[in-house]
């Protein structure tokens, strides 16, 4: 566990390719929040802004929290992969290559990843030093991340593509904010 020797395996996914898959998932899952910002900025005044904010909380933000909580667990137990892992060609399964059960997937994604995250994420970085490239949360459920296809370049392109989308949309939203009547009205109440 605390052996700091780096390992290489052709069968199991290493830390870099897993970070790429994670980044894709994170960027995709947070895309709807750009929509939330867009809706808020397109409000004509504070009154409508407040009303529609609660619509967004009810119909977008809180449901999104549920989706984010269940996304990894459901995808891993059903297909053995999330969108990010599918793009880079990874699959999560047990030592015999079988898909994880619902309980195993829940424990991996929603419980033991919390343990991996403590101490500055040392449990995630354990992937680099483990012979089978297992993170702590993999050890907890006996799961392995198999390298089914080597598509790290596609994954990298997907990450850069998504970052580009975020950048373009952010610039567009910033321009929108400059001319937004809602932001203008809020400014009139600010002391500076």
């Amino acid at each position, binding site marked *: *566990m605390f052996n700091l020797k780096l390992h290489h395996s052709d069968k199991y996914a290493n830390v870099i390719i897993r970070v790429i898959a994670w980044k894709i998932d994170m960027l995709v899952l947070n895309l709807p929040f750009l929509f939330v910002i867009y809706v808020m900025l397109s409000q004509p005044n504070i*009154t409508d802004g*407040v009303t529609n904010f*609660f619509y967004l909380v009810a119909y977008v933000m809180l*449901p999104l929290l*549920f989706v984010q909580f269940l996304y990894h667990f459901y995808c891993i137990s059903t297909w053995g992969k999330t969108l990010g892992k599918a793009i880079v060609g990874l699959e999560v399964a047990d030592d015999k290559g079988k898909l994880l059960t619902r309980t195993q997937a829940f*424990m991996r994604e929603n419980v033991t990843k919390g343990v991996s995250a*403590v101490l500055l994420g040392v449990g995630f970085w354990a992937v680099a030093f483990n012979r089978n490239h297992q993170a702590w949360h993999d050890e907890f459920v006996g799961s392995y991340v198999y390298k089914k296809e080597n598509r790290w370049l596609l994954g990298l392109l997907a990450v850069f593509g998504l970052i580009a989308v975020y950048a373009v949309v952010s610039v567009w939203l910033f321009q929108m904010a400059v001319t937004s009547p809602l932001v203008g009205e809020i400014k009139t109440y600010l002391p500076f």
Partner: protein
Amino acid sequence: MVASKTSSSDHHKKNSHWSISDFYNQSWDLTWQNKKLWILGLAVSLFASGGGGGGNSSFDASDFQQFQENQQQEQQLPESPYSDFEVVEEAGAHNGEIHGVDVEAQEDIRGPVGVGLHAMEFGQKREEMLTPFVNGLKNVPLHVWAIIGLEFLMVVVGLIVFGLFLGTWSQGALIQGIAQAAVDKKIELAAISSYAVTKVTSLIWISLIPLLKFIVLALLIGAGGAIALAFVNALADGLGFISVIAGIVAVCWFFYKLIRLAFAINYAFYYCVEENLSGQEAYDQAYALVDGNIWKSIRLALANAIVTGIVVFAVFLPVLGVGFGTVMRDLMNDSFTPMTFVPVGITFLLTIPAMTLIQGILKVFTYSTWHYAFRALKK
């Protein structure tokens, strides 16, 4: 490694008597030789608020004291300055009069009128600011509030259930890990974790049901006792001392039972996980085990609390000293700038992971001491 593990096992075999120093030696060997247990210790320090020390509650006497102090401070606070603003705001000011009262004549009593006028402006401004927000809230239809309420309810219930699951699973896994390490079995996190999952419902039962039963019973007895005492006092005057004696006895009984319950719950976790018993069976056996061993358990709980406190302070106090000393030095030299906080902040940030790791190791150590105590009591 193998030799030292054998010595740990030997300790276990010859441990048929109660000795806290023996428990500490064995626990330290076990904690140091099985570093994989530290992961489980980290899980417990992350997910379980108490436990391993004779209780599972995160709300202790110091919290209650803090709560009382906060309440007192709130009561002592002066009235909000806005309350004055509101009075003046309502009154308005026209030609030196407020509702026909010569305000200039009142100036020496209530302060200059300018303050009141500023307050009035502030009040109007505040109302102007709030109006669109209030209107926005009024426009939200009822069904949206209903959906938000339902979703929040789901979040709250989900968090409570999830929190209970996490707390009991992590404690169950650590206890099972310690039990395996103590008999020199290899620690397989997957096997330990899946076994702990199967024990979660029993452990939740142990955490909740006996405590709830005790609270209900204590309330019923308290209410019954109060009625009986009122009846006795009504029958004959001068029997007030009976109430005092009965009150003291009741309080002593309550605390004795509460402490016994806390230790029974603690040992029930070990019965449930190590002996593979159901929640009810584990609690019944643990309750019987505590009988006659309560002072031993209290001594171990105190020793663990002292060791934990000393270790945590030994790490945290120097860091606090460095931070406080740096700020004070710059303040006294008149060289205090916001940059002073940079080294202080970095020191604190570096301390957080160190403290987390130490907490995890301490959890393994304290749970190990309870494991050996449990084994010694069972013999």
